[in-house]
C-alpha cells in the first residue's frame, strides 16, 4: 500500500526545482574547477601552488584575514555590547550603519578606503609622516578586511546579548558576584560561541575577498593576496594555473564552511537547552 511521506503539498516540485537549479547554477560550474584540476598533471599542479609568490600570498592572505578577524572580534564585541545594552541618541541610525559593509559594493569600499589612507588622504596625511603607511601595504589589507568583516561579528553577537535574560545577571549579583565576575563568568561563556562564529565568518570572508582589497593593496609584490593571483593567471591565459590555486582556496573555504555550520548548530543547541 502506497503511503505519502509528507503531508503538505509541493514536496516534489519544490525539492526537485531546488536540486535542479542548484546543480545547474552552482554544483556543475563548481565541478568544472575540480575536473580541470584533475586533468592537470600532479607535479605541475604542485609546482604551481607551491611557487614562492603563491606561498607568500598564502601567508599574506591567511595572516591579514586572521589579524583583521581578531581585531573585528574585539571591536565588534564592543559595538555589539553598546548596541545591545545601552540607549543613546541616534542609536537606530548607528544600528543601521553597522550593516553598511554588507550593503556597500566592495569596489566602492575599495576606492574609498584607498582614498582615505593614501598619502594625501584624510588619515594618510597624518599617518605617513609618523611612519605608518597604510595604503599599498599589508596594513592596508588588514584595514580593508576589517571594514568588510565587521558586520559578521556584530550581527552574530548582538542577538545573543539582547536575548541574555537580565534575570541571569541579577541571579549572579544576588549570589555575591561583582560586576566584573558576572561579566567574566556568566556573560562571556554565553556569547563565546557567537563570537567564535562571527570570528570564523569574518575570517572566511577575508580569505576570499577581492574587490575591497585590490585597490588598497596596489598589486605590489608584498601585497598580493591569493585571489588576486588567480586573476593574474587568468589574465595571462593560464587557466590551468588559476584553477590549481582555486582548488586550494576552495578546499579551505569548504572546510571552513563546514566548521562554521557545525559551530552554529552547536550554538543553537546551547541556546535551546535553557
Amino acid at each position, binding site marked *: *500500500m*502506497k*503511503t*505519502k*511521506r509528507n*503531508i503538505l503539498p509541493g514536496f516534489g516540485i519544490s525539492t526537485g526545482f531546488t536540486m535542479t537549479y542548484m546543480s545547474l547554477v552552482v554544483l556543475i560550474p563548481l565541478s568544472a574547477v575540480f575536473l580541470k584540476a584533475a586533468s592537470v598533471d600532479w607535479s605541475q599542479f604542485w609546482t604551481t601552488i607551491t611557487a614562492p609568490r603563491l606561498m607568500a600570498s598564502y601567508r599574506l592572505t591567511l595572516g591579514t584575514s586572521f589579524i583583521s578577524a581578531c581585531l573585528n572580534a574585539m571591536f565588534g564585541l564592543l559595538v555589539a555590547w553598546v548596541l545591545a545594552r545601552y540607549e543613546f541618541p541616534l542609536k537606530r541610525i548607528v544600528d543601521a550603519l553597522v550593516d553598511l559593509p554588507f550593503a556597500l559594493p566592495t569596489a566602492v569600499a575599495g576606492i574609498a578606503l584607498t582614498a582615505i589612507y593614501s598619502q594625501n588622504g584624510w588619515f594618510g596625511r597624518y599617518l605617513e609622516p609618523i611612519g605608518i603607511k597604510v595604503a599599498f601595504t599589508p596594513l592596508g589589507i588588514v584595514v580593508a578586511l576589517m571594514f568588510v568583516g565587521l558586520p559578521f561579528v556584530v550581527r552574530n553577537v548582538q542577538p545573543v546579548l539582547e536575548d541574555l535574560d537580565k534575570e541571569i545577571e541579577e541571579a549572579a549579583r544576588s549570589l555575591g558576584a561583582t560586576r566584573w565576575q558576572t561579566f567574566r563568568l556568566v556573560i562571556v561563556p554565553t556569547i563565546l560561541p557567537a563570537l567564535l562564529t562571527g570570528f570564523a565568518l569574518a575570517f572566511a570572508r577575508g580569505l576570499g575577498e577581492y574587490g575591497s582589497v585590490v585597490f588598497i593593496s596596489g598589486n605590489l609584490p608584498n601585497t598580493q593576496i591569493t585571489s588576486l593571483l588567480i586573476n593574474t593567471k587568468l589574465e595571462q591565459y593560464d587557466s590551468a594555473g588559476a584553477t590549481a590555486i582555486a582548488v586550494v582556496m576552495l578546499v579551505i573555504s569548504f572546510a571552513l564552511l563546514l566548521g562554521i555550520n557545525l559551530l552554529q548548530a552547536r550554538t543553537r543547541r546551547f541556546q535551546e537547552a535553557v
Partner: protein
Amino acid sequence: MSIDIKSVSKTFGTFEALKNVSLSVGDAELVALLGPSGSGKTTLLRIIAGLDTPDTGSILLNGDDATNRGAGDRGVGFVFQHYALFRHMTVMENVAFGLRVQPKSIRKSKADIRDRVMTLLKLVQLDWVAQRYPAQLSGGQRQRIALARALAVEPKVLLLDEPFGALDARVRRELRTWLRRLHDEINVSCVFVTHDQEEALEVSDRVAILDSGRIEQVGTPQNVYDNPANPFVYSFLGNVNLFHGRVKEGKATVGDFEVDTPEYRNASDSPAVGYSRPHELELSRERSGNDSLSAVILQIQAVGPNVKLRLKRTESEDILEAEITREKLRELELKTGESVFVKPRLVRVFIADPSETPLNYQI
C-alpha cells in the same frame, strides 16, 4: 460519521509511536483519547485527520477506506493544540477560510459565507470580535475561534488535540462544560486528545486509554473507573494505594485481610497487588476485625472540602494516602503521630506478573 481504526502502527525513526492500535468511534459519539505524554494519542489523532500516514493499518470513515485520502478530502475538522490561527487574518477571515478556498463549483456566495461565519461566531459567543486579530484575543477566545473555523466547513468529525491544554484551570473547566453542550447541540462525532483524566471522564461518552502506543482499555467513563483492566489504567485514573499480597484459587490475601477474587479462580499461588483509592480507605481508632491494618499518621493536609492524610503502615515501610471528609476528621480528632487502623472498603486485585499483557477491551 463513524471512524474505524484498524491495526494502525506508526514508527518515527526508532520510536514506535503506535503499535497495532484498533478503535471504533460511532456516529455522533464524543470519545476521549487519554494517556500520558508519548502514549501516541496525538499521533493517532493526526493519522485520523490525514496529517500523518500510518505505516500499517487503515482508517475507515463511514465504512470507506480513507487511508490514502488527503487531509482536505476527509470531511474532518481539526483543532490544534496551539490553535494555529492564521495570524495575519482577522477572526472573520479565519473562520471564513475553509469556505473561501472551496472550488468555485461548490463555493457559496460572499453573502452566504458572511452569514455562516456570523452564525458560527454567535454559536461560540464571539461575534463581537469578528474584526480583531488573533494576537488581540485571550487563549480561551482563540480556542473557540479555532473551533468555529473548523466547524465552518461542516465536518462530519471534529478532532481536537489537547484543546484546553494551554489554558488556566478555571477557563479549562468552563470550556469543558461548554464543549459538551456544544457537542450535544450540533451532534457531530468528536474525538479529543487529553492527558487530564478528570477532563476525559467528565466530558466524554467513551474513553480510550493509551500507553506506549497501545490502547489499554476502552469504555464509558464510569466503566473504566470502576472496572480498570490493569494496574496502569487504575493508576492513571487517580491516586492509588498499593497492598502487596498473594492470590490463590480465587482468594487474595493482602496483608491481614482476604478478598474474594473470582476472576483468578484458577490461579496457582502467585504474588498479587491490591489497589485502593484514597477515599476508599476507612480510618478508625479501634481495630475492626481481622482486616484492618495499623498505621501511623505522618501528615494531615486540608484540601478544600476534604482532608488528605499520609500514613505509614506499622508492619511495613509502605506509605498510604487516605482521603476523608472534614467531618470525619473532627469526629475522630486525628492528629499527626497518632496510631490508627486502616480498612480498605474496596480493593482491586491484579496479579503482579510482569509478563502479563493487559487485554484490549472493546465495548
